[in-house]
């Protein structure tokens, strides 16, 4: 039954390249996450306080991001915009796709976070003479961060996993790089097995770090 001969040597020889590609993965995922947090926050506030077109644009963004496949979103930034003469590099396609998706999911998370805080908190802060900026930055947002911290960690893991779609638009993050080597050497199984292990370890490290940070930051 096991007539297949495993060849691990080529994989180990390109291990440095794979590890470098996993740094690329982490970089693009982190940047998308960072942008996603900023935009997600704006989306949440727009949906809670905005009206008219601001509310509708934010709502459309959130619902489109959450109700269509990430792959579709990536293709949209790839071929879709290409049709309009807007051409993105593979890196930009991945970054734009991941950011669009993540901002939508985080926007919904943040909104839930704000809604979970009793409105009386804002009232109490304002009654002490804090202006609206101070009330948000000192009272509301720290509480929201606490509420959305673990969902945000999960979202980051999700972004890291999702960045593997880069392979399909020609971006050489970890999966794309793996695919490149695999098709050169025909050791597809071996390459993807090692890559799976790298992802597994990356995710474990992210989750561990997140737990560690939580234990340092949140004392209540």
């Amino acid at each position: 039954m096991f007539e297949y001969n495993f060849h691990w040597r080529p994989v180990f020889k390109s291990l440095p390249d794979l590890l470098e590609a996993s740094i690329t993965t982490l970089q693009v995922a982190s940047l998308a996450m960072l942008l996603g947090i900023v935009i997600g926050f704006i989306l949440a506030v727009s949906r809670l306080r905005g009206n008219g077109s601001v509310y509708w644009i934010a709502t459309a963004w959130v619902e489109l991001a959450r109700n269509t496949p990430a792959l579709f979103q990536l293709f949209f930034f790839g071929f879709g915009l290409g049709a309009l003469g807007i051409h993105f590099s593979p890196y930009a396609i991945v970054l734009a796709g991941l950011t669009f998706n993540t901002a939508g999911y985080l926007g919904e998370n943040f909104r839930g976070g704000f809604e979970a805080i009793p409105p009386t908190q804002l009232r109490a802060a304002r009654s002490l003479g804090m202006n609206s900026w101070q009330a948000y930055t000192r009272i509301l947002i720290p509480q929201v961060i606490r509420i959305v911290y673990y969902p945000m960690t999960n979202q980051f893991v999700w972004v890291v996993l999702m960045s593997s779609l880069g392979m399909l638009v020609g971006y050489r993050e970890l999966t794309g790089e793996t695919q490149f080597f695999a098709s050169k050497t025909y050791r597809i199984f071996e390459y993807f097995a090692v890559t799976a292990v790298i992802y597994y370890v990356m995710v474990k490290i992210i989750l561990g770090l997140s737990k560690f940070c939580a234990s340092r930051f949140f004392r209540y």
Partner: protein
Amino acid sequence: MEQSVTVFSSFSVQDLSFLGEAALRTLWISFLSITIGSVLGGFFGWALYEMKVWGAIFLNPILDVFRSVPLIVQLVLFYNFAPIVGLNLDAFESGLVVLTLYTSALVANVARGGIEAVGKPMRITSRSLGMSYLQDMRYVVFPIGARAIFPSWVGVALGVMKDSALVSVLGYVELVKASQVLITRTQEPLLIILVVGAFYFALSYPVSRYSAKLEKRWSQ
């Protein structure tokens, strides 16, 4: 399939039925993997809850693999692994196996949460009323737990439906793959991408809205 369609330069009615068939395939593979995966995942969730130590040592790390490795990597890996152990699986079968296991890993977490949500005190009460273990499960844990996890389960199911787009990397002509084929031929990427996006959206959006509504009603 690609050869059997004559070369058109623009989008036609035939193309629409080609997309329609592909959409059905998307629905079919999603339906099968969500159904089987949920049953399997419910069982795993129960096992995680009842067998704390064994679950933590064996089951959980294995399920973790499905949650920490990109689905695309899982698909390629399994597709190339099957022949090694003498299994002759086509793209659909490989995709179905992976999607099912992937679903079950996600559902397992949700299901365990559901059993925990019912809580020890309530179960002790029901057992003290003379219910057997199975009766307790059937009449207390299941109805209450199911309600608690329903929104998360819907989230998982919709996620799998969207993720099924990835089976296209194995050459299974589901909706996204079909759209790529058409894009290459008709050179109308924007139109086709929007049609595909609209399909997913039309499926996912009402369901997620309905589930959010139920969640709100039940939490009152």
